[in-house]
């Protein structure tokens, strides 16, 4: 596989560092199945302290996304993947800004809004 290493790095999705790529897909499948079943179990169980369940689901989802990135998209920390990792980091940064930024801003607006019955009263 070493012939596929290019002078300017590799494109995402090319697995040049491990032998037996079919095995890597199967390992990824195993992890993904376990994590999926774990999150379906976590959402309907009484074993976990209920207020902690959303955090547990979030952790399981992020872990599974990581598994998919590593075993299916073959993103790694190898030196020839620097560009891919940098783009991914920026993408995650923008996604975080968008999702959490919107949620915080809208929660604040909601908090500061006049109760609906008062608003209707004023419009009369």
């Amino acid at each position: 596989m070493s012939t596929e290493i290019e002078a300017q790095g590799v494109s995402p999705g090319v697995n040049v560092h491990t032998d037996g790529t079919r095995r890597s897909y199967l390992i990824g499948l195993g992890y993904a199945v376990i994590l999926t079943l774990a999150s379906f179990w976590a959402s309907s169980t009484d074993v976990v302290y209920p207020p902690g369940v959303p955090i547990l689901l979030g952790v399981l989802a992020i872990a599974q996304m990581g598994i998919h990135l590593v075993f299916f998209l073959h993103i790694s920390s190898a030196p020839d993947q620097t560009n891919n990792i940098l783009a991914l980091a920026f993408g995650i940064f923008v996604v975080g800004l968008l999702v959490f930024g919107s949620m915080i801003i809208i929660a604040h607006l909601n908090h500061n809004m006049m109760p609906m019955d008062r608003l209707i009263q004023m419009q009369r």
Partner: protein
Amino acid sequence: MSAAEQALARTEAVPLSLRGPAATRVVAGYGFWLFLLSDIIIFAALFAAYAVLSGETAGGPTGATLFDKTHVLIETACLLASSVTCGFGSLAVQSGSRNSTYFWMAITFILGVTFLSLELSEFSHMLEIGAGPSRSAFLSAFFTLVGTHGLHVTIGLCWLIVMLLQVATLGFQPMVSRRFFCFGLFWHALDIVWIGVFTIVYLGAHL
């Protein structure tokens, strides 16, 4: 190969300014990777809208009454299995084996169609009981988010047909295997988005 040539063949031995232009495959893959990340940012905006609006049911049905968990588990299983068969298919493309490419990609296609038909049956059931996108802000956000993912899967399936036709007519030319490679990235990225969908939309509704 002399010792000096061997040293130069090691990529880290050559300074970045002396390496020359990257191969087309690397440039194409990197460009497509940037597209996928921007696509994921679109989904992030839709996820943000859903997270904000998921409680605004306007007296209509809530997620807990609408969503069936086993249905979602089957959908997830289809998409996950199709991701793996797609990976096997791209390995077959790399090794230039036509029959196993057709075999794995046909399974990928069938699993994708199964996923889509499950999703459409869920949508049509919701429309029947009056829980369409116009019912509440929650349902508008739900249909936009899950529908956009479904639209991506549909586009992916059309792309897969086009790619199989290209293998049949053009064979494994470099450009065909490059496009197939980008298709694989697209399909895996859709699976990553689905993880967010089933966690936030379907499992989050039952909390």
